[in-house]
């Protein structure tokens, strides 16, 4: 029925739009046909031709109205009107190309600068999981005093899975950052990243493999039994050339054979933002990928590594699920006080998870988006100001239209269409600007063997947002001028081109515009300046160690199935050989070099003789595992006590080196050297502190000093280590000698991420913040430029508007200085007011910045001392230039104006 309806009507609608002229002709012809017959009928009745014609027309009750009625029934009138308006708008915009171009550019800049950070914000916060009904997916997290975003251990996960009723399945996953992969048995393994997942993972997420099958539930039931793997779509494309017969093939992961059972669909690149797993293996195979031989993944209740995701049943609220989880967590606490004391569990939505308070990335993108919206607002007020001045020059045109009976609404529509055209052109330009911005972000090179995906992209979501923004801009910029210019005194409007001489309200609006602009750009400038200074000062504090002349290579002997003894042997022999190599000053082994890309491990401990607070069992500190020569190699000073020695072997008493911050923290009035702390709670092994190392920067250059513990590699074996080699010359010259040394020990050993430490440092600690500084700086500069242009425009406009008044004043004796004061005085007063408001906003933003990023308290007076005078200077200049032109007005010409 509906189909049939459209079958008849769709061609008519299309015809009405596309063949308007023909439709008009036919309409005319049809009515003409009728009229002629009517006239003939009249003539036949004996009327005169004029009478017959008159009667025929009367019978129609007004021919033109009928025609309009017939056009209306076409139901496309609004569209054809819009097309008319569009056409008209284009024509009238072409008449003022300079102004149009400027407004378009202003809006393009505003929107483009919003699109870039929005694409970041979207990727980090808003973009839904690439799964079916993503809003149903909850993340369950363990939560303790030290870590509100902790993961679950395997035994905990199994209990969650068995005892929750709120979900259609509870799945677990564990990212594997380095797995030795070889497509064939005899090739040297390469490092790839994968994901351990529970058997129900794909089913819970609603992800259907594009090839083969997903895991069966029984495939994660028995540890180590089912060596099966599901490939990720990108990996399948890259490594297997999209081989359709890949299912059934055998590949090697960490030396063990796995059978490919399926390929995940193109639509599912994984659940993580920054990395994409190459393959998925069942959780039951965890032992093969374990990073720490001391841990027992399937048994340890405190080996919390699993990300647990669950699909909420329809009709169950998050609060209900949370209540259920609370009960379970309390049960854990009762049953396992040793592992779960003071430990709760939280159900988090995707949004809650992505806006976690300890993550700076999304906060950065929020700040940038807000700043960008500020720029956009300035751009829009500018555009509105310019359009306002444009509307004024058309006062007479509009008055004529109104006098001829154009409806006010229709006229507003016409004017808004013009703004819409401008805004859409601006939006288009903005998409271009944003595209360039996002390209620049993506060009950001990340020095890792494992691909880190930069998720910022110009996609449909960002495009839509930009488009919506530009339409909003059109409304914002266009509505005020349109409303004002259609609300006028007609007789005055027809007489003169300038009708709003006194209009108090309108002047108030324009003044507010100036104040808002000054305030907004001052705030933006202050904010960007504060950020620049915040970063600079954090960089300026220094990192505490020497980063030059260092080569780094990562090794992971597990990739070729080394035992713990073999691993220790390899590292010992390798460092011994290198020490006797020409050009090598010293070598050091570390689990994770400072200011790198990976997180440090955490250590829980109880300091001896320290009064533990009643409500906690242990403290946590960040830790690294290093060898004896690490401190010397990195130039990290040992302030008291000694460094590690060969004598600190596996059999010797356990020792540790702590940083100065740690020592002061726990033994503020005593020497920490010689003190003990216990690992893993009150009953764990005692460790003696043998030395105090200088406090350096560990994770971020702008971090606050934090507790840090070093354990000797001989007593705390870690398979995956980074070798740091210090040289006097170019570190890259050492690549070949290192390679030779490794080959001499084992030709199969993969060398991972060979590069100079300075490369890593530059990427992780300089380039990132530099991009941020540049971005904010650009915001500030663009904001200032926009404000200048806006102010200039408004003062210039005022001068034009008051040309006659100036002429009169000069004719009766005002000198140039009087005129200058007249034109600038008001502007400067507004600038002053804007500055005060801008300062208030600036203080507010500063507090926000300090609370979110930098832990500096107080007000950065210098920032304002630099920004405010610049602002005042620039605005005075912007007001002065057009005001000066007013003093050059010849009175005779000014009086003749109009």
């Amino acid at each position, binding site marked *: 029925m509906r189909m*049939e*309806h*459209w*079958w*008849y*009507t769709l061609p*008519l609608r299309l015809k009405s739009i596309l063949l308007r002229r023909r439709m008009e002709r*036919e309409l005319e*012809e*049809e*009515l003409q*046909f*009728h009229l002629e*017959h*009517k006239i003939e009928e009249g003539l036949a009745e004996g009327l005169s031709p004029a009478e017959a014609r008159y009667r025929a027309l009367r*019978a*129609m*009750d*007004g021919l033109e*109205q*009928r025609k309009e*009625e*017939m056009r209306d*029934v*076409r*139901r496309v009138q609004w569209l054809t009107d819009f097309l008319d308006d569009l056409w008209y708008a284009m024509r009238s915009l072409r008449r003022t190309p300079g102004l149009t171009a400027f407004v378009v550019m202003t809006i393009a800049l505003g929107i483009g600068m919003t699109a870039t950070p929005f694409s970041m914000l979207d990727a980090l916060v808003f973009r839904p999981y690439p799964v079916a009904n993503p809003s149903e997916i909850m993340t369950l997290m363990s939560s303790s005093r030290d870590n509100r975003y902790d993961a679950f251990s395997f035994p905990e996960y199994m209990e969650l899975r068995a005892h929750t009723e709120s979900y259609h399945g509870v799945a677990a996953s564990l990212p594997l950052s380095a797995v030795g992969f070889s497509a064939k048995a005899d090739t040297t393994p390469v490092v790839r990243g994968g994901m351990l997942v529970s058997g129900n993972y794909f089913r819970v997420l609603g992800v259907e493999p594009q090839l083969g099958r997903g895991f069966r539930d029984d495939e994660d039931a028995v540890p180590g039994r089912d060596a099966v793997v599901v490939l990720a779509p990108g990996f399948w494309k890259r490594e297997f050339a999209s081989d359709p017969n890949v299912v059934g093939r055998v590949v090697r992961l960490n030396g063990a054979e796995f059978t490919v059972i399926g390929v995940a669909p193109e639509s599912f690149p994984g659940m993580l933002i920054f990395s994409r797993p190459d393959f998925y293996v069942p959780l039951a195979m965890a032992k093969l990928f374990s990073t720490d031989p001391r841990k027992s993944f399937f048994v340890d209740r405190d080996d919390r590594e699993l990300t647990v995701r669950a699909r909420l049943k329809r009709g169950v609220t998050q609060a209900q699920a949370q209540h259920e989880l609370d009960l379970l967590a309390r049960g854990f606490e009762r049953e396992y006080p040793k592992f779960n004391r003071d430990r709760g569990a939280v159900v988090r939505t995707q949004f809650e998870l992505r806006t976690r308070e300890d993550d700076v990335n999304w906060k950065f993108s929020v700040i940038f988006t807000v700043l960008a919206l500020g720029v956009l607002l300035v751009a829009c007020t500018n555009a509105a100001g310019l359009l306002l001045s444009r509307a004024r020059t058309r006062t007479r045109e509009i008055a004529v239209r109104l006098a001829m009976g154009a409806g006010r609404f229709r006229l507003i529509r016409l004017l808004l269409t013009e703004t819409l055209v401008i805004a859409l052109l601006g939006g288009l330009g903005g998409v271009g600007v944003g595209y360039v911005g996002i390209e620049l972000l993506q060009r950001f090179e990340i020095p890792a063997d494992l691909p880190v995906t930069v998720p910022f992209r110009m996609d449909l979501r960002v495009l839509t947002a930009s488009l919506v923004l530009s339409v909003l801009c059109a409304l914002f910029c266009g509505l005020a001028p349109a409303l004002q210019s259609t609300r006028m005194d007609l007789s005055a409007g027809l007489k003169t081109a300038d009708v709003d001489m006194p209009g108090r309200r309108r002047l108030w609006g324009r003044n507010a515009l100036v104040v808002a602009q000054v305030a907004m750009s001052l705030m933006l400038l202050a904010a960007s300046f504060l950020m620049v200074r915040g970063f600079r000062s954090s960089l300026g504090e220094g990192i505490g160690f020497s980063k030059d002349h260092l080569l780094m290579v990562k090794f992971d002997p597990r990739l070729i199935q080394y035992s713990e003894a073999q691993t220790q042997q390899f590292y010992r022999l390798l460092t011994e050989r290198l020490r006797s190599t020409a050009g090598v000053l010293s070598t050091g082994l570390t689990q994770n070099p400072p200011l790198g890309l990976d997180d440090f491990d955490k250590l829980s401990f109880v300091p001896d003789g320290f009064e533990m607070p009643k409500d906690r069992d242990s403290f946590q500190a960040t830790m690294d595992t290093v060898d004896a020569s690490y401190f010397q190699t990195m130039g990290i000073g040992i302030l008291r006590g000694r460094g590690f020695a060969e004598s600190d072997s596996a059999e010797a008493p356990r020792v540790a080196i702590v940083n100065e911050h740690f020592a002061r923290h726990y033994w503020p009035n005593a020497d920490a050297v010689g003190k003990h702390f216990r690992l893993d709670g009150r009953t764990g092994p005692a460790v003696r502190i043998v030395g105090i190392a200088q406090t350096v920067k560990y994770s971020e250059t702008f971090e606050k000093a934090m507790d840090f513990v070093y354990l000797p590699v001989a007593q705390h074996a870690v398979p995956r280590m980074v070798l740091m080699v210090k040289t006097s010359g170019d570190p890259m010259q050492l690549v070949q000698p290192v390679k030779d040394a490794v080959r001499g020990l084992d030709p199969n050993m993969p060398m991972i991420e060979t590069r100079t430490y300075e490369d890593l440092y530059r990427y992780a600690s300089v380039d990132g913040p530099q991009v941020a500084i540049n971005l904010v700086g650009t915001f500030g500069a663009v904001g200032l430029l926009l404000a200048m242009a806006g102010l200039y425009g408004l003062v210039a406009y005022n001068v034009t508007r008051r040309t006659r008044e100036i002429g009169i004043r000069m004719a009766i004796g005002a000198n140039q200085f009087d005129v200058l004061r007249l034109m600038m005085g008001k502007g400067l007063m507004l600038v002053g007011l804007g500055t005060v408001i801008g300062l208030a906003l600036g203080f507010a933003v500063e507090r926000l910045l300090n609370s979110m990023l930098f832990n500096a308290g107080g007000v950065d007076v210098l920032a304002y001392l630099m920004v405010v005078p610049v602002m005042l200077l620039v605005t005075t200049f912007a007001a002065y230039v057009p005001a000066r032109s007013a003093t050059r007005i010849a009175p005779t010409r000014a009086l003749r104006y109009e």
Partner: protein
Amino acid sequence: MSKPNDLVQGTLDLLLLKILALEPLHGWAISLRLRSISGDVLQVSEGSLYPALHKLEQEGWIQAEWKQTENNRRAKFYSVTRLGRKQLETETANWQRLSTAITQVVQISEA
């Protein structure tokens, strides 16, 4: 003025569909037919005829075709579509129900 206020709302549609269901006609012929069928009882302004026809066309109930008349002039002929015939059936049924009901009401009030 523009509304056929002398006709029950919607009746004009029914009349036009009925007339066109018999044979395809152009506007002028329809107006003559309307006059002759209903006599002076139903006054249909010629002005409201064409908007009504266009509305029916836009609804998909009738379709138009330019053809030659008997005295060799081009005219727009309207004919009822399949959809229009269905509509005619429904509207006829509606009309009959309505008029029966009203007749009954009128008779009751007289008794």
